[in-house]
């Protein structure tokens, strides 16, 4: 059984190179929980800002007439990866996980896989 807090802890502990993680509601932009981050990297601000990224992508897909749903969105910086994963379960309707990774230490494929697993556990 995973609650929000343990799921976030598991992200930071088990995903190599993870420096911050947040569970965010993308309509309101509210972070239901955050862990990690730093003085210079406010996860609450990042969470609210990234709702616009998702909204823009969804609107574009709507315009293009694409029917598929977004699984995740990857943003690569010089030294960081930002991974956004939309929750698809019953309770997770309209939520996403936001994961910040250190590009030097992270294994992207592994991180995606683990984030998917943690997402599934979050609903159980």
């Amino acid at each position, binding site marked *: 059984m995973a*609650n*929000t807090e343990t799921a976030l802890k598991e992200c930071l502990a088990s995903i190599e190179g993870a420096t911050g993680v947040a569970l965010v509601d993308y*309509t*309101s932009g509210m972070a*239901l929980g955050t862990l990690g981050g730093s003085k210079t990297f406010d996860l609450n601000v990042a969470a609210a800002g990234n709702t616009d990224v998702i909204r823009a992508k969804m*609107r574009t897909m709507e*315009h293009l007439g694409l029917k598929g749903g977004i699984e995740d969105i990857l943003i690569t910086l010089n030294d960081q990866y930002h991974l956004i994963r939309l929750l698809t*379960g*019953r309770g997770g309707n309209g939520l996403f996980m936001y994961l910040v990774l250190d590009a030097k230490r992270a294994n992207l494929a592994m991180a995606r896989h683990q984030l998917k697993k943690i997402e599934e556990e979050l609903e*159980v």
Partner: protein
Amino acid sequence: MTVVASTPPPRLPVRDRQAALREARGVVSPMLTRLADERATGVLHREHGTLHLVDGRVVHAESPLAPSLGTLLTAHGGLDATAWRDAEDTADEAHLLRHGVTPGVLELTQVSALYDAAYFALAPSSTPGRFRYGGAHWLAAVHPVPVDDLERETLRRRALLRHIWPDPAIDGAPLVRADPVAAPAVPSRQAAVLARVDGVRKAVDIARELGRPAFHTLVHLRRLAAAGLVCVRTPPHQDHPSDGAGDPYVALLKRVRDALEAL
């Protein structure tokens, strides 16, 4: 020779996040902040809703302006209405878990229902709040929220709505669909809200029907209002027989004027 002592220039304002947070404390409800400080347990009744506290933390919130946890769980959590009523009557959290709600879903739904109802409960009110000391709410263990977090989030939500569309009139009035000249495409989640705008329903009715938090519905409605697709149903005015109500350009100009005035 006289020395003129000039006053030092005023310090430039510096954005200090911590100080801003300290200032925000108690702005929403000084009474709630006081109750948090004394780690009170009981129920705070305010004009637009109630907050349940345990040890100075908010554990549950209800408001007539927001769908209840039961509504949200029966809409998306795989729970049927009878099971919810039984759980509520017996105040038994385990009953929910036996009827198909997983702990994860319960927590996620409870926390969004809590912030949602609290947003309305903490809205400015014309009557003073009352606090009754008492026992803990039956869902107290699911996801307690610190009062400071709740106040900060409530202020952020107010700012978000103001930023999208500054006119709060659409939050509580019956709504009608406007018919703009070049209607923009509407994303599916907003389209579901738009489809239920019929001149009778208010925001809260739409939220209940869709089984979504009321604040989320307000966000969608304000976006729709900003796009010119939704407006408040106004009773017919006798004083202004024809001020170009039928002309879409005049309607647009009036919306721009209203928005500028509200800034």
